[in-house]
C-alpha cells in the first residue's frame, strides 16, 4: 500500500482528503489524516458570534466530514521528519508516509506580543478568531458602557484578511442599533498604509470606514501592549489608548514545522505557488493557510487551490509532469453591517475590481458594492461549506479567476 498522510483536518485538509480519496484507488492507497482534536470549527461563523442573539452551531465531528476510507488519527504532532519520511506524535507514536500533505493552517498567537496575555486577556483585551475569544467578545460588547474601542491587527499575513474590517463594520452597526453610537469611539489600527492590502479595494473600503466615522490609524506596528495603562505602543513609540481592545494577534503556522526545518520565520512552508509542492522536499505539499503562497489565507483559496492540487497530485504520484497551475484565486464576502455585504474576487495578478459575479451582467452578486444579495450569499455559504466545499465537490463558480463581469474603474466610482 502507498501511504498518504495529511496533517490537519481543517478546511484544506478535509477538502483534499475527500478529493483524493475519490481519485486514489482504495486497494492501493491508504489515506491517514492527523488532527489534534475531534471537532471541526466553522471559522467563518466566528465573526457573527458577538452579534447574534442566538448562537448558530459551529462545530461538527471531523470524522463525520471525512469520507469512509479516510483514517482519522487524533494526536498532537510533535515533528515531521522529511529525511526519514515519518511524522512523530507527542505520545511517542510514529506514522510513516510516502507522500505528506501539510494542512495545519495558521493560528493567532497572542503570546508573541509582549503584554497581550495576562490578567487583562479576555477582560479588556480580546481576539475573535477563536471559539472562546468570539464568545468573550460578545460578552464584552454587551456590557460595554461607552468609550474608545480599538480594532487592531498586529501584523500581516492573517487568515481571512477582511475579517477585522467586517468586525469593525458590524460593531459600528451594533452600537448604532443600541442607540449608543455617539458614546463609542471606534478606531481601526493597522500595520498597512490603508484599509486593505490592494489599492482599489482599499479605496472603496476606506471610504466606507470614513462614512461610518471610524478613525483609521495606519502604519502602526505594535511592539507591546501596556495592559495596565490600556495602551498600544508601536516600535516607533506611538501610543494608542483604548477602553476595549479587539486585536488580531500575530498569525503563525504550526510550531513543529519551524522546529522540523520545514517552515519559514512564521512557520509557513515555502512552496511553488502554482503547484503547492514544497521547494525543499518534492514528496511534501502544503495546502491552505499552512503554505507561503502570496494570496489571502482563506477558505476560498483552500477550495480553489484544492481542485488543481488534486489533479497535480495524481499526476505526480504517477510519475507524470504536473500540468495544472493554481492562479491564487481568492473570493471573500465582506460584511458591512445593516444586512449588507460586498464581495471581492481576485488572484495573484489581478487585484479586486468592481463588477458583477459570477455570471457577468446577471450577477447576482456585486463586486466591491454593498448589497443585501451579497449578504445572503454569505449566509448561504454556511450550507455550501458543510455540504459542497468540505466534501470536495465542485462549486458552481469558476475555479480559476475569471475577468467576466469585472471592469477597471477609470475614475473614482462611488461604491
Amino acid at each position, binding site marked *: 500500500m502507498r501511504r498518504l498522510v495529511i496533517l490537519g483536518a481543517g478546511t484544506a485538509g478535509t477538502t483534499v482528503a475527500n478529493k483524493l480519496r475519490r481519485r486514489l484507488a482504495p486497494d492501493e492507497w491508504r489515506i491517514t489524516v492527523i488532527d489534534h482534536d475531534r471537532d471541526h470549527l466553522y471559522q467563518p461563523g466566528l465573526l457573527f458570534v458577538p452579534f447574534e442573539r442566538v448562537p448558530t452551531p459551529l462545530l461538527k465531528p471531523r470524522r463525520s466530514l471525512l469520507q469512509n476510507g479516510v483514517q482519522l488519527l487524533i494526536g498532537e504532532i510533535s515533528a515531521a521528519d522529511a529525511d526519514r519520511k515519518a511524522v512523530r506524535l507527542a505520545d511517542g507514536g510514529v506514522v510513516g508516509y510516502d507522500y505528506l500533505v501539510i494542512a495545519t493552517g495558521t493560528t493567532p498567537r497572542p503570546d508573541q506580543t509582549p503584554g497581550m496575555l495576562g490578567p487583562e486577556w479576555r477582560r479588556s483585551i480580546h481576539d475573535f478568531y477563536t471559539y472562546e475569544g468570539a464568545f468573550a467578545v460578545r460578552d464584552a460588547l454587551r456590557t460595554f458602557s461607552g468609550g474608545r474601542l480599538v480594532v487592531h491587527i498586529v501584523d*500581516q499575513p*492573517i487568515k481571512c*484578511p477582511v475579517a477585522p474590517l467586517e468586525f469593525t463594520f458590524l460593531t459600528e452597526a451594533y452600537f448604532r442599533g443600541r442607540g449608543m453610537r455617539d458614546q463609542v469611539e471606534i478606531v481601526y489600527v493597522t*500595520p*498597512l498604509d490603508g484599509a486593505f*492590502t490592494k489599492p482599489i479595494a482599499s479605496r472603496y473600503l476606506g471610504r466606507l470606514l470614513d462614512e461610518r466615522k471610524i478613525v483609521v490609524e495606519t502604519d502602526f*506596528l505594535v*511592539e507591546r501592549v501596556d495592559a495596565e495603562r490600556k495602551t498600544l505602543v508601536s516600535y516607533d513609540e506611538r501610543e494608542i489608548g483604548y477602553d476595549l481592545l479587539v486585536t488580531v494577534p500575530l498569525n503563525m503556522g504550526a510550531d513543529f514545522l519551524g522546529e522540523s526545518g520545514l517552515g519559514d*520565520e512564521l512557520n509557513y512552508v515555502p512552496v511553488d505557488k502554482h503547484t503547492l509542492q514544497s521547494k525543499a522536499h518534492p514528496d511534501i505539499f502544503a495546502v491552505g493557510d499552512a503554505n507561503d503562497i*502570496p494570496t489571502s489565507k482563506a477558505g476560498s483559496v483552500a477550495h480553489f487551490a484544492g481542485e488543481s492540487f488534486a489533479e497535480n497530485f495524481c499526476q505526480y504520484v504517477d510519475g507524470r509532469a504536473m500540468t495544472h497551475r493554481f492562479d491564487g484565486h481568492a473570493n471573500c464576502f465582506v460584511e458591512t453591517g445593516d444586512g449588507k455585504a460586498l464581495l471581492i474576487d481576485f488572484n495573484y495578478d489581478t487585484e479586486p475590481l468592481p463588477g458583477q459575479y459570477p455570471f457577468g451582467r446577471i450577477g447576482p452578486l456585486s463586486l466591491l458594492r454593498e448589497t443585501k444579495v451579497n449578504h445572503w450569499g454569505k449566509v448561504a455559504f454556511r450550507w455550501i461549506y458543510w455540504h459542497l466545499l468540505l466534501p470536495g465537490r465542485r462549486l458552481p463558480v469558476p475555479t480559476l479567476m475569471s475577468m467576466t463581469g469585472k471592469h477597471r474603474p477609470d475614475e473614482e466610482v462611488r461604491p
Partner: protein
Amino acid sequence: MTVVTLGDTRLHIDSEGFLTEYGEWTDELAGQLAAQLGIELTDEHWKAIRFLRTDYLSRGETATLRRVSTVAGIPIKQLFVLFPGKPAKKMAYVAGLPKPRGCV
C-alpha cells in the same frame, strides 16, 4: 513602468519609484536613493540592505521586517531607527527591490 535617468544611468521604476530591474542597482545608487529619503547610510544600514538583496535572490520576494529581524538578527525596533516611519518600504526602496507585498 517608467524609465528615469539618474546621473548617467537609465533606471526602470514602477509608479511609486521602486526599481523594477534587480541588476540596475549599485552601491552608489543605494546611497543616492537613501539621500532622497534623508538617510545617510551607515554599516548598520548596509547590513540590512545586503541581507535584503541576498534574500531576494534566493526567495524571489522582498523580506518582511519580521524576516529581517528573525533571520538577519536586526531587531525591528532598530529597523525603525535606521529607516524611520515606514522601514519595510524604505529598505526595499534603497535596496532596489519591489515594495514588500506585506499582505494579500
